[in-house]
């Protein structure tokens, strides 16, 4: 059995305690198990899961104003213990007020959801993407099935890179445009401006 098929099978079985991932000499099979996970789950599992469970950003922000913990219990999942936060799948339609990709590698779109001309949230445009919201917001990727936090972090990075590769190219100026987005966000305090990691941004015609 090819090591990659075996690996994916055991990942799905979710019982790989103590298993060490070993590269085989098989040059045909993907020697990179992380890339394999991304290829086999991003489009077919992660995006659908986020899209299906996504709360409207405006609804979420209203709920957070009432109580972050209650909003978390209704719409999200708590990750990372004391240092972590509430992870939410999120979607919405907004106007882009600023597109910072020309001036920084950690490019973002400042977005206005409620039409008051002020930025309500930020969409990460890449190429440098921060955080691990895409990895942590669904139950698709369980830390206990990874050898250590380094491997787990590599998955987070690979998912971020994959997501960024699907967004509008840097030469498409987003400022002033209306966009539909789906993504994930981690919120730690009720007052912070959400920094959303999108899996898709569609420019409305």
């Amino acid at each position, binding site marked *: 059995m090819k090591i990659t098929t075996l690996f994916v099978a055991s990942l799905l079985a979710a019982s790989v*305690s*103590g298993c*060490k991932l070993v590269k085989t000499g098989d040059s045909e099979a993907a020697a990179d198990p992380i890339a394999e996970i991304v290829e086999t789950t991003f489009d077919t599992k992660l995006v659908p899961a986020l899209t299906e469970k996504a709360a409207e950003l405006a609804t979420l922000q209203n709920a957070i104003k009432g109580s972050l913990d209650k909003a978390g219990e209704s719409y999200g999942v708590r*990750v*990372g*213990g*004391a*240092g*972590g*936060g509430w992870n939410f799948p999120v979607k919405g339609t907004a106007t882009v007020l600023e597109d910072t990709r020309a001036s*920084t*590698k*950690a490019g973002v779109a400042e977005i206005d959801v409620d039409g008051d001309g002020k930025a309500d949230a930020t969409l990460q445009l890449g*190429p*440098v993407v*921060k955080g*691990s919201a895409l990895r942590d917001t669904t139950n698709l990727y*369980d*830390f*206990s099935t990874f*050898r*250590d*936090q*380094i491997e*787990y*972090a590599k998955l987070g*990075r690979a998912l971020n890179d994959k997501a960024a590769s699907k967004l509008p190219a840097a030469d498409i100026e987003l400022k002033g445009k209306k966009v539909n987005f789906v993504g994930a966000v981690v919120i730690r305090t009720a007052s912070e401006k959400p920094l959303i990691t999108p899996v898709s941004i569609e420019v409305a015609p």
Partner: protein
Amino acid sequence: MKLTKRLLMSVVALGIAGAMSGTALAADTIAIITPSHSNPFFKAEADGAAAKAKELGYATMVLVHDDDANKQSELFDSAIAAGVKAIILDNAGADASVAAVQKAKDKGIPSFLIDREITTAGVAVSQIVSNNYQGAQLGAEEFVKLMGEKGNYAELLGKESDTNAGIRSQGYHDVIDQYSEMKLVAKQTANWSQTEAYTVMESMLQAHPDIKGVISGNDTMAMGAYAALEAAGRKDVIVVGFDGSNDVRDSIKKGGIKATVLQPAYQQAQNAVEQADKFIKTGKTGLDEKQLMDCILINAANAEKLETFALKP
């Protein structure tokens, strides 16, 4: 009946303890084993665990392994012989510690790991692991921002034998290497030591006077580096550390070191004891074995809320 069950458990425990050489302990005891307390981070862990253990009615056996896996193994033997009910451990090596945790398990003593993970699952009951990689990414993101995404920088590495030294460096580079105008001009270990970092920083500065920033694997090295920079009249150099110590907090408040990353050590240690207590009483914790605990960025905006490796609300 509860009383009978407790009596039975105590008899069994005394039986186990009595079967070995060494004195059996009168009260239920939890062993707390960490690296040396000379680093305030590990002292905070030990203090946090001991406080929670006492609160829950346990006696404590507090031991230090000095990052020596052999010494750690001997300490495990002592704890086992003494008949402790559980071991809270910040371990001396991800691979090397598996055997010690396994032998305690074989003798019916559960281990609850904090901070550092081991590379085998199913041996410890809990591994409450500091997400050092995520923390390093946070520190590096702040460092890159302060550097304006460009410039020459140096890196101070931790002790090579400590897994966290490698994890943090990888986390730093995961972020920084995405910025082509950030140039690494010097990279050297100062072995987690403040005095060593002072000397290393001095020589780095002489070899590379155009250094704009220094990213350090931990706070004690950041303190040493900053002292050397200050002595050389180079307070302009941007320094970022890792751990969230009171020393670096004070430096940040004075505008010296610019940022650090907090591992919630005190809370982690307390959580471990709570899980140990639940396991002792019910046979399970109700949680997954591996629990990642995220780190928090500390800079001028929140430094005054930081006290002994915990953020005040």
